[in-house]
């Protein structure tokens, strides 16, 4: 522990913390103050997002730290704990801030200043930003800013972050605050509280690695499950006793220790704010209230919710389509150009085009979906609707451990689990968030669709018609959800041990969002997606390429060519000259077929195929032959790969897609060459559904694993991968065995 409380040397850049209740426009204000000069990361060891920006003050550039939104410093949630640690200067690698800007909702002074009073205990110079001043004026009210400044003892600046008003005044006030070191006048506590604090401080001396600030001690006294308590060595008994004695004192005063702070502080604020808020004009009726009458209505509310979600889903699912096609085309073009350059070096060329560009391209293709989804998420959040959606849906999701806010991530996972998992950041409750992330990959994402279309098109539609085929497709989409709900319940009950947070959600007034903030959030999400997970994806891609490419014995090509030529000559009644002439033309049908045969031969003896053949007995119970097994194994990095892999293995070339008639007929005609089923078709209806169930339940997406690893750590990512694979195997074995027994 190297952090010191002493103020840093003057030449160091000043650190300014930005704190405030959620829904006060804190993020808008942060964006206004820093512009595009922002860096996003995580606090060490926790998944709380750390946002830093540069703000230019009179003294020069300073670092602005955007602390997570908090209603109080009672360190019960991860966010609040981080806020307390940063403000106390107890977070490793971070200095105690030189000043703090407290963003306050001008329309709800009392509750917002509650947080400011808690911070006041730290003695850090403070500036109060009275944001949402326009909402206050819309209510026909005004605040006596000068009087408030006098009573609080710190600068108070009225701002409208949405319109960037008051920002330069705020910047000036921050500069002054650092120089003049004006702190908010702390509350005067009853003697008993002060005594208790002193006693705890004495008791804790020597039992903590750093001396506790008064704020931290007060948190220990007032909060039932304070995280500060954990900093005291193994919850030392003398300290615990001192806390108990202190709480006894409060009880004697007639105060419940858990409520003492709120009771005393609200009483203090009541007096402090007397006559500050004035009714200047005519009071207008609350617009938000009448909107809510409709938005939260039993029928109307659910209908609007349904329509909105449909629009979001459609946008992610289909608007992204053309952009994704564009990326696909661009990928093909780059592959062509780079492939041309690297022609003299076939191995390197294959690594770059078939490995890196193909793999990274398959990942980047999700970018449009991410951008579109985050556009809508920011829009829904900034207008205040997201909280309403959570309110409407909470009952449906609450019983299995998720909460109302799980709905949007789950829905977007139907398009792609990656944006879905990133969208879970809107869930404050860490437990619900974790469970949502773990079940999101079970939702049937769009990459599973080609597999369903291919197999249902080849085996269900010809036999049972379009209507049943459609039904089968729908059932495959429901399967994931049907598994996800009980899985969430089990995870909540037995696996994820984090303490659940009560569902306590503010329904903020409806507001018009600031477009810059919406676009900025969208851009940030895209940037992070490409930058962070992209590095891991690149590495995985290279490894998988190597497994599919090597070993590469040169003689294999000659062997296949010889065999193929001999076959063709025999088929052409011995006209060797004709066959050779056709093979000399690289574009002839025969040459293409030979090329596919060579690719197929190499793939069939690659390390990946050897793995597939080795583990085929495992999949035998699910009715897979070695070719399907290789396809399944090869598609672990990205499930849509199965189509092209099957194409390569059945020597149709890698360019087949799910609608290609060749692949459908080839699959339908494939027969067991030997073994107990020799001569019978490999793909029965039971096998087709067994494969589909496997794909529905399996975590065959390297990108998703990488994103889960980023959000929850590698342990959870691997656990998710292993358990989903196991579930997929069990599911497909059940389907195959039961299906076969029933005669399908």
């Amino acid at each position, binding site marked *: 522990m190297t952090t010191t409380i002493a103020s840093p040397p003057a030449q160091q850049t000043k650190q300014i913390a930005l704190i405030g209740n959620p829904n006060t426009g804190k993020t808008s204000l942060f964006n206004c103050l820093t512009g595009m000069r922002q860096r996003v990361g995580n606090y*060490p060891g*926790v998944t709380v997002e750390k946002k830093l920006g540069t703000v230019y003050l009179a003294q020069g550039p300073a670092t602005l730290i955007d602390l997570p939104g908090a209603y109080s410093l009672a360190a019960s949630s991860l966010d609040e*704990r981080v806020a307390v640690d940063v403000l106390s200067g107890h977070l490793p690698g971070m200095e105690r801030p030189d000043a703090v800007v407290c963003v306050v909702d001008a329309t709800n002074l009392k509750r917002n200043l509650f947080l400011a009073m808690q911070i006041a205990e730290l003695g850090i110079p403070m500036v109060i930003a009275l944001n949402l001043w326009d909402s206050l004026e819309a209510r026909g009210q005004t605040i006596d800013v000068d009087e408030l400044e006098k009573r609080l003892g710190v600068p108070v600046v009225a701002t409208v972050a949405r319109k960037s008003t008051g920002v330069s005044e705020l910047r000036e006030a921050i500069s002054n605050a650092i120089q003049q070191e004006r702190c908010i006048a702390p509350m005067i506590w009853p003697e008993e509280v002060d005594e208790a604090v002193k006693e705890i401080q004495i008791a804790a001396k020597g039992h903590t690695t750093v001396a506790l600030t008064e704020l931290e001690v007060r948190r220990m006294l007032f909060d039932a499950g304070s995280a500060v308590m954990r900093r005291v060595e193994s919850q030392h008994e003398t300290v615990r006793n001192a806390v108990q004695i202190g709480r006894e004192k409060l009880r004697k005063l007639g105060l419940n220790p858990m409520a003492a702070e709120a009771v005393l502080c609200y009483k203090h604020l009541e007096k402090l704010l007397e006559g500050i808020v004035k009714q200047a004009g005519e009071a207008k009726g609350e617009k938000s209230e009448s909107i809510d009458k409709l938005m939260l209505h039993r029928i109307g509310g659910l209908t609007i919710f349904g329509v909105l979600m449909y629009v979001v889903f459609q946008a992610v699912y289909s608007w992204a389509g053309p952009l994704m096609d564009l990326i696909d085309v661009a990928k093909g073009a780059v592959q062509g150009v780079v492939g041309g350059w690297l022609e003299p070096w076939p*191995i390197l060329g294959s*690594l770059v085009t078939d490995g890196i560009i193909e793999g990274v391209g398959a990942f980047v293709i999700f970018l449009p979906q991410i951008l579109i989804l985050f556009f809508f998420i920011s829009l829904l959040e900034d207008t205040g609707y997201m909280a309403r959606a959570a309110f409407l849906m909470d009952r449906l999701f609450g019983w299995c451990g998720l909460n109302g806010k799980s709905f949007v991530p789950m829905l977007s996972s139907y398009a792609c689990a990656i944006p879905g998992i990133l969208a879970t950041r809107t869930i404050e409750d860490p437990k619900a968030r974790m469970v949502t992330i773990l079940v999101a990959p079970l939702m049937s994402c769009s990459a599973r669709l080609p597999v369903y279309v291919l197999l249902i098109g080849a085996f269900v539609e010809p036999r049972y018609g379009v209507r049943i085929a459609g039904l089968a497709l729908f059932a495959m989409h429901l399967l994931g959800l049907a598994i996800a709900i009980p899985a969430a319940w089990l995870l909540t009950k037995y696996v994820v041990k984090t303490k659940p947070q009560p569902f306590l959600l503010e329904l903020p007034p409806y507001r018009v969002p600031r477009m810059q903030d919406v676009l900025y959030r969208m851009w940030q999400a895209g940037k992070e997606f490409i930058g962070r997970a992209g590095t891991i994806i690149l*590495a*995985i891609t290279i490894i998988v390429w*190597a497994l599919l490419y090597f070993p590469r014995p040169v003689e294999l090509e000659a062997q296949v060519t010889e065999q193929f030529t001999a076959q063709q000559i025999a088929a052409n009644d011995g006209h060797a000259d004709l066959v050779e002439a056709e093979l000399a033309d690289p574009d002839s049908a025969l040459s293409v077929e030979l090329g596919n045969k060579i690719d197929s031969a190499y793939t069939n003896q690659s390390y990946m195929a050897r793995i597939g053949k080795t583990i085929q007995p495992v999949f035998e119970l699910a009715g897979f032959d070695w070719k399907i097994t290789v396809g399944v194994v090869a598609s672990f990095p990205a499930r849509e790969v199965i189509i092209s892999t099957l194409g390569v293995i059945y020597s149709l070339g890698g360019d087949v897609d799910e609608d290609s008639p060749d692949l459908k007929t080839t699959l339908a005609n494939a027969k067991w060459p030997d073994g107990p089923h020799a001569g019978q078709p490999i793909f029965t209806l039971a096998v087709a559904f067994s494969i589909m169930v496997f794909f529905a339940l399996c975590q065959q997406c390297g990108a998703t694993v990488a994103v889960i690893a980023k959000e929850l750590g590698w342990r959870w990512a691997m656990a998710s991968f292993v358990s989903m694979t196991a579930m997929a195997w069990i599911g497909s074995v059940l389907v195959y065995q039961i299906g076969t027994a029933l005669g399908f």
Partner: protein
Amino acid sequence: MTEVTIVAAIVLAAGYYLFRCWRKSSKPQGCGDNKSCGCRRKR
């Protein structure tokens, strides 16, 4: 020959990178002796 060396180096680098990510994330980060960071790992 040089081509094979380059490709082998790239593949090994990728493997090493993944290994390093794995090692880094399976170790508790930023905990040190300060128990405030919220690291849930039991000691």
